[in-house]
């Protein structure tokens, strides 16, 4: 590459310069504001990595230990920064290792752009070495994907990729670039981001009459109830949402991915919905008269049995994705649009109210739940520690300011239930796909996405063993991630189901673990294991005050269950306290 980079890293050079497809790609990333790339090299993406060698002052590349780690890191980065996560992988096995993360990002609407290398175009379809039909493999798990076989396409395709990944309902995009296109020289006329694609309508036009109808329903309601999801966060509509909640005086509950959009301690925040959510919001879903669903998609983990879900209620559904309206729950008034636009319109039309008695009904249920479940979970008298008390201790020290990244299982539900969030973009978890192995790499990405914030990963002993090789990424990148392993010596959540629904037939959930602390030390990460409650405050203090990463393993009760619980096939009102 002959051209000096100074002349290149500008949005639009006056005259075209001859560059390789690889250089054009990196230039495009810079204009898109990319600062961090998570990736893993290989033969078919070597020209891009070769070009990257000259760009290391502008693009920070984090070498992960597995492509799945790369994409989860990209997801963590996107979730905390609000920007697009970028991931590089080579062809064949490199690309197929991205599939789990793509599926995860797709279902959780996370904007990521994956660039995969591909064999030379003339070898496509010949079963060449490391050739896989990545486009067809990833079609069901991407918002969009495209194979580039000619360098001339690169600027347009990358522009399109970023626009699609981040606009409307965000999602993952994969661009597969053949090796010849990476090498090929072409006349690069600069890079212009994309802001329109003829066939793509990222968000529907808001129809004011629906907002008016929604406001009328809300104003007449005696027992209105707000349930919100990640759409509020994805739309950066936290302020608009808070204004709506506060003016309307309506109690509001959240889905796992909506956590943190308004602070946990907000007086109108009545808790978490769904299978392991809070008692009040679940039961009262079947008592409210108007249900206002904002940026959420009525996932089956939230609704339980659909034919018994909020049948008495008129439903107002605000969503940017037309396909979500009436998909699972029929709406009385659909409000299509970006909630950043629709919420202020609605707030203007709703009457200022206080639903004190109705809000107290929630508080009454909370009291019941505290008595039956929460008190003992957070203040146990048994010798062994509970997951809940660890989270409680963490809350006391972080004061709700930390980013909490969780893996999947009991600890995830406990963390989501009890962790306090003062800020938005603080709860990073695999909500829709429930991907074990998500947390460790996602926490790495989360820290890169929010360097000034404390990132705490809470992981089960099972899930940690799925991607623990990313300790190597922590070691090499020097990133500061606080890891808490809640070790119950079981694949806890599966064991809970076996206990409750399979007569305690504990089939293959008894999992042995290595010495995690020794393992961490092999990666130069300090750590400690505790199994005595009295050590907990000090240990968490040490975890948080140690400079750099730290691993704390907490031995918790083996057979503890997460309650309340809406058993599968039951209505949300049938939620069990024990």
């Amino acid at each position, binding site marked *: 590459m002959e051209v000096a980079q100074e002349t290149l890293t500008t949005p639009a050079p006056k005259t075209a310069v001859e560059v390789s497809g690889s250089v054009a790609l990196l230039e495009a990333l810079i204009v898109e504001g990319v600062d961090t790339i998570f990736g893993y090299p290989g033969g078919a993406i070597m020209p891009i990595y070769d070009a990257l060698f000259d760009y290391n002052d502008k693009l920070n590349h984090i070498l992960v230990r597995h492509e799945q780690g790369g994409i989860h890191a990209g997801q963590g980065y996107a979730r905390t920064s609000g920007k697009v996560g970028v991931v590089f992988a080579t062809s064949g096995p490199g690309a197929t290792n991205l599939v789990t993360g793509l599926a995860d990002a797709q279902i959780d609407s996370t904007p990521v752009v994956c660039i995969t290398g591909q064999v030379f175009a003339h070898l496509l379809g010949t079963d060449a070495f490391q050739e896989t039909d990545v*486009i*067809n493999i990833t*079609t*069901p798990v991407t*918002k*969009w*994907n*495209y*194979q580039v076989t000619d360098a001339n*396409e690169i600027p*347009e*395709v990358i*522009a*399109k990729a970023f626009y*699609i990944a981040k606009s409307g309902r965000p999602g993952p995009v994969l661009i597969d670039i053949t090796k010849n296109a990476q090498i090929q020289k072409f006349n690069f006329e600069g890079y212009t981001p*994309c802001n*329109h*694609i*003829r*066939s*793509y*309508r990222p968000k*529907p*036009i*808001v*129809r004011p009459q629906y907002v008016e109808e929604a406001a009328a329903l809300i104003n007449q309601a005696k027992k209105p109830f707000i349930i919100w999801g990640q759409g509020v966060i994805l739309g950066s509509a936290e302020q608009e949402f808070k204004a709506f909640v506060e003016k309307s005086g309506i109690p509001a509950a959240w889905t796992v991915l909506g956590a943190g959009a308004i602070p946990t301690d907000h007086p109108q925040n009545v808790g978490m919905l769904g299978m392991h959510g809070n008692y009040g919001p679940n039961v009262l879903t079947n008592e409210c008269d108007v249900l206002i669903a904002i940026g959420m998609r009525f996932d089956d983990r939230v609704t339980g049995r659909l034919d018994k879900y909020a049948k008495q209620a008129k439903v107002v559904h605000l969503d940017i*994705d*037309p*396909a979500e*309206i*009436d*998909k699972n729950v029929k709406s009385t008034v659909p409000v*299509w*649009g970006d909630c950043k636009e629709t919420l202020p319109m609605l707030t203007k039309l709703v009457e200022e109210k206080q639903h004190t008695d109705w809000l107290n009904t929630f508080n009454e249920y909370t009291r019941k739940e505290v008595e039956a479940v929460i008190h003992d979970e957070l203040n146990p008298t048994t010798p062994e520690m509970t997951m809940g008390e660890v989270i409680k201790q963490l809350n006391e020290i972080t004061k709700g300011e930390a980013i909490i990244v969780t893996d999947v299982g009991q600890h995830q539900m406990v963390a989501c239930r009890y962790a306090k969030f003062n800020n938005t973009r603080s709860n990073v978890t695999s909500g829709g796909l429930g991907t074990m192995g998500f947390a460790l790499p996602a926490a790495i990405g989360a820290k890169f996405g929010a360097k000034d914030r404390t990132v705490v990963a809470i992981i089960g002993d099972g899930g940690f063993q799925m991607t623990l090789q990313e300790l190597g990424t922590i070691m090499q990148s020097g990133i500061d991630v606080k890891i808490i392993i809640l070790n119950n010596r079981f694949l806890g959540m599966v064991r809970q189901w076996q206990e409750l629904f399979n007569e305690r037939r504990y089939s293959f959930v008894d999992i042995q673990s290595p010495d995690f602390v020794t393992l961490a030390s092999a990666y130069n990460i300090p750590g400690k294991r505790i199994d005595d409650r009295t050590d907990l405050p000090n240990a968490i203090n040490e975890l948080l005050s140690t400079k750099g990463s730290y691993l704390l393993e907490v031995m918790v009760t083996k057979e503890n269950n997460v309650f309340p619980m809406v058993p599968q096939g039951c209505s949300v009102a049938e939620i069990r306290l024990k």
Partner: protein
Amino acid sequence: MSNQDIEKQEFNITVYTENQIGLLSRIAIIFSRRKINIESLNTSPSEIDKIHRFNIVITESEEVVRKLVRQIEKQVEVLKAYYHTNEDVIWQELALYKVSTDVIAEKVSVERLLRENGARAVVIRKDYTVFETTGHREETDNLINILQPYGLIEFVRSARVAIIKDSDGFNRKLREFERLEPGEDVIENEYLNQGEKVFTM
């Protein structure tokens, strides 16, 4: 038969799309993922330059079809998708029949056969003749039954093509659809007829 089956009927799904490699598989996945069988699928250029049109026939309940259409519309390269019952559209399938010229010349009054079935001969060679007819399934099936005894050598039937009965065509449908499912109107789309000038590949 369950209630669901009773509600099921044939629906004609019409999809306007960019002409893009891989889109067929994206659309097909929407059906296969839900274990819905596509009975007929036709794709061809539309009346608008560089816009392709899919005609898809499935047997399902309207509720399922409505949701499918929304999922189809969600695809980046899809401009618009609609669904119609058979009553709402005029539809046709093309069929070709190959028979031995000798047999057919000897044994049948070809002229009558063609007249009665609205068919025509496309090719007449020494060794075989190819007839063509267009119509609904029963009509094209009918000619199979007639030709079968005379040693039908080969038969092929095309996917269904359908056009909306309403004199306003898709125009009015589009607006109706927009009322239920707001979005930028395709017809109002300023980029629609600008072909290469717009950002598309």
